[in-house]
């Protein structure tokens, strides 16, 4: 699940890029061996062969003709590939649109049109259906970030004031890791996310769950009260409650996500508690304060239990 390997692909474009990489490595290896072979012959070869290599025509053949032929072929191949990468899936549904906004140091993910007059908002996790083109519309709220899901496609930068698009498609269900690849400040290293590809019915079911507002059964009333008293709603939104701030991630379905802290830790009640208590220990420099001094033990357990129950 933690794989971020370029060759561990999950979709057609990822496959194409992996194939391209192998092609380049193969070609590069041949050229490397050839050049070193020439060098060895030049140093230790038979006198007759060395005389051939010592001719200026050898420079023209090896230094001009060979690279021109090889690189022209590579250029044509690349151009063909560049076309293929942009093509929509033949006969497929219209692409699904998902907006991803980079923040220092987390990802806001929006699904426009999934709710009347808006869409569900999650964080640090992109859920997509398999077998369908998905257009990621990416931008950033503060500094430049870059979105990279090596299993599916290459990077696309998230630049404030600019919306970039990258079309991805997963063929097979599964979870894969992605990460920010443009240096974005102190905790650039801890700005990861998960992509979960699911079969279309499973995806629809997930979407339906996400559409529901947050519920607070009686056993979690205390957690909700702690959330209110600690001022968490000053930064976070929980749909179905009075809190609608957009500074930090939307917590409506926090417990259903795979990680907390943008890929820093696995998601469970314990790590939620640890994150709330010591966000600055776990990821120094991120914008969430540590609440260890503000909450006592039972309060911390109550609020993390409530948040964990939101799925």
């Amino acid at each position, binding site marked *: 699940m933690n794989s971020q390997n370029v060759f561990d692909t999950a979709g057609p474009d990822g496959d194409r890029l992996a194939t391209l990489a192998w092609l380049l490595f193969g070609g590069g290896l041949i050229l490397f061996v050839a050049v070193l072979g020439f060098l060895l012959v030049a140093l230790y070869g038979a006198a007759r062969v060395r005389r051939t290599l010592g001719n200026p025509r050898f420079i023209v053949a090896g230094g001009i003709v060979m690279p021109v032929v090889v690189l022209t072929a590579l*250029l044509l191949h690349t*151009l063909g590939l560049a076309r293929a990468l942009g093509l929509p899936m033949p006969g497929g549904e219209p692409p699904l649109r998902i907006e991803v906004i980079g923040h220092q140091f987390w990802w806001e993910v929006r699904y426009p049109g999934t709710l009347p007059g808006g869409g569900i908002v999650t964080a640090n996790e992109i859920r997509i259906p398999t077998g369908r083109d998905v257009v990621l519309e990416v931008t950033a709220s503060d500094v430049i970030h870059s979105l990279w899901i090596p299993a599916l496609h290459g990077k696309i930068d998230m630049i404030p004031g600019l919306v970039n698009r990258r079309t991805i498609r997963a063929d097979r269900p599964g979870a894969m890791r992605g990460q920010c690849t443009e240096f974005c400040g102190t905790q650039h290293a801890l700005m990861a996310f998960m992509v979960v590809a699911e079969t279309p019915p499973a995806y629809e079911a997930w979407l339906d769950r996400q559409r529901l507002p947050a519920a607070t059964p009686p056993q979690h009333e205390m957690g909700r009260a702690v959330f209110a008293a600690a001022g968490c709603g000053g930064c976070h939104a929980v749909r179905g409650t009075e809190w609608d701030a957009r500074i930090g991630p939307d917590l409506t379905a926090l417990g259903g996500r795979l990680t907390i802290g943008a890929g820093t830790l696995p998601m469970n009640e314990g790590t939620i508690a640890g994150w709330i208590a010591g966000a600055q220990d776990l990821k120094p420099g991120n914008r969430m304060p540590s609440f260890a001094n503000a909450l006592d033990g039972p309060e911390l357990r109550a609020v993390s239990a409530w948040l964990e129950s939101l799925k």
Partner: protein
Amino acid sequence: MGVAASLLGIVIWALHFGLVYGGQALACEVGRPSIVMPLVIGASVVALALLLVLAVVARRSRGGFLGGLAVGIAAFSALAVVWEAAPVLALPAC
């Protein structure tokens, strides 16, 4: 002939590069993608013709070392011009 001729190849390449890159960016910005292909091909044909003339003149003038340098630079420039123009045949303008 001489130093100026050698530098001329560079100038032709630079103008071609600026025109192709800048022209494409401008055409896309103002919403006229259709002019990109004729612009790039036209500029490339003109650049290649100029480079050819330059190389022929430099060769005929027996400019010695600098003449050879002029021909070589024209050749490298021509290669760059051809390669840089090639993508316009394969990719959408904007």
